[in-house]
């Protein structure tokens, strides 16, 4: 098994694909954490909302392309609503209350999703782009999973450009680095946070709708993805794009290869990794703030 190049090919692609989904989810969360020290447990529910609303849009339009566009927008709108109603008011409240309010939000969003979409697994079968498969090293592999990897890499590149080469990016970096000084220098930190929150929500929705054809959607999917996402954020270091990317690769690889070599201990490995990182480098691998 270990000398078989086909095996490695499939597993490496699998871990890349899981890593890219985790990256889409964690990148918004890490900046929300890092920028305002805000703990947002409801981020996973936005992922589920992306998949579920994507399902409805795909059903209505008969294809996935509109869903890729509209589902993140839907999720962004819900994110904006949450921000205005709740997040903004909890900004100064300390991590404990934020954990509790967003934990309450998990319940609320989960039940709303159950009410609208029911509890069944919902899959899209028609109108999926790249639905074929290809053969390499004697293994057949679904093309769609390559598409997921490409989306992740594209988003990483786009965010990198946004952060390093635009005014908004400079403001975000300044606000993560030192919010007080940034606001003294005329950066509207509040507005920056709002924009980041919207982008983060939209990316969580994008992750959901991109995952939909590969894994199908259900109301509970947000809760199960939440913990690996939080692990990525903490392992990578709060507030950093590089950290979210590296953390996603590390956790995606650990989970995928753990599943292959030690099927009973894959998630235990992930938690052990988190504990080890917290003890050795408490601020994560690539923290935004030194």
């Amino acid at each position, binding site marked *: 098994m270990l000398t078989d190049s086909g095996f490695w090919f499939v597993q490496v692609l699998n871990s890349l694909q899981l890593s890219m989904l985790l990256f889409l989810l964690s990148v918004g969360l890490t900046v929300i954490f890092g920028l305002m020290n805000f703990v947002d447990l409801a981020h996973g529910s936005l992922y589920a909302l992306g998949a579920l609303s994507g399902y409805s849009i795909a059903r209505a339009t008969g294809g996935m392309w509109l869903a890729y566009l509209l589902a993140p927008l839907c999720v962004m709108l819900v994110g904006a609503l949450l921000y205005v109603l*709740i997040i903004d008011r*909890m900004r100064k409240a300390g*991590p404990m209350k934020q954990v509790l*309010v967003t934990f309450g939000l998990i319940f609320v969003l989960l039940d709303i999703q159950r009410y609208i979409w029911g509890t069944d697994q919902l899959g899209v079968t028609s109108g999926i782009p790249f639905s074929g498969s290809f053969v390499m090293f004697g293994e057949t592999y679904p093309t769609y999973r390559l598409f997921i990897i490409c989306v992740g890499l594209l988003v990483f590149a786009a965010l990198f450009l946004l952060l390093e080469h635009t005014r908004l990016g400079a403001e975000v970096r300044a606000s993560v680095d030192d919010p007080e000084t940034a606001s003294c220098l005329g950066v509207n930190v509040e507005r920056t946070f709002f924009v980041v929150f919207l982008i983060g929500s939209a990316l969580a929705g994008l992750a959901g709708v991109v995952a939909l054809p590969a894994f199908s959607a259900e109301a509970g999917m947000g809760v199960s993805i939440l913990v690996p996402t939080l692990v990525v954020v903490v392992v990578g270091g709060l507030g950093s794009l590089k950290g979210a990317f590296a953390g996603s690769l590390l956790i995606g690889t650990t989970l995928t290869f753990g599943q292959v070599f030690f099927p009973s*201990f894959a998630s235990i490995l992930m938690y052990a990794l*988190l504990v080890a990182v917290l003890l050795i480098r*408490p601020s994560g691998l690539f923290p935004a703030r030194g």
Partner: protein
Amino acid sequence: MQNLMNFRFALAALTMIAFLVSWSGAGYFGMELLAEIAILGLLAMSLDLLAGYTGLVSLGHAALFGCGAYAFAAFTVLWGWPASLAMAAATLLTGLLSLIVGAVVTRVQGIFFIMITLAIGEMGYEIIFKTRALGGDDGLAGIPRLDLTAIGVDLNDPGAFALFLLLILPVVYLLLRRLLASPYGAILNGLHDNPVRMRALGLPVQRYQISIFAFSGALAGFAGTLSAQHTMFITPQLLHWTTSGEVLIMVILGGLGTLVGPVIGAATVTLLRHELSDLTDYWSLWLGVFLILVVMGGKNGVVGWLEAGWSIVRRGRVKRSSNDASR
């Protein structure tokens, strides 16, 4: 301050009386509810010691609760120990485990503390979930209850078992109240308010945090042994982080750092769940809304509301009496 302590003590006494009155009129289902409330009340009080009094918000407390339950089940079902010995051993074992876990987790603070307790708790969940000898995801059944027939009590009777738990509750409450009134309790409060200043005062901060983590864990494990006896069937869900979250909800709803609040919170959530699940399939939606409103309301849960109401009543009375004096 003294006044507030007396008010809370009176509240605890009233809560206890309410439990006993409802026990005397309860049917089979009511007994089961009361037993559940008592167990969750114990667990919530143990979490309050950490989260409310010491400022260590743990999202892995259910894993210690589950550890107690599983250790008790393993000792009785698999090894055939008598229940009394198993209870003591399981509590001790959970306490020891908490000591080790506490030594690791107290090295990080704030949001990282929340994350590391979540991770270690989930590790526990996964280990139990995958261990076939402990039933894995099927759970473990056939757990016996404590044998008190020597003093003429049959704990297999739901009424007797509920009363047994309802009597443990005030005993633990009084012990914890005593502990918190001691110099040790004052140190915990100091750690909650300002750990940096406590260190500057020459206090070994981490050692105290580990000690309360171990003590709180042992108490959670004790509650776990009672929970295993109550349901007689346990599943890994006991250890899951969402269970920790629910207990944290009880602590917050009742009132953080009030000791009686968590018990009131446990009763509120258990009753709400029972009442709402009769009315609607989406009861957790309303629980979530309720939680969000309580946390955003700014007061310290149910106890906070009651204290605010009480101080208005008292101020009114003081004003009236001073008016009388000036006349």
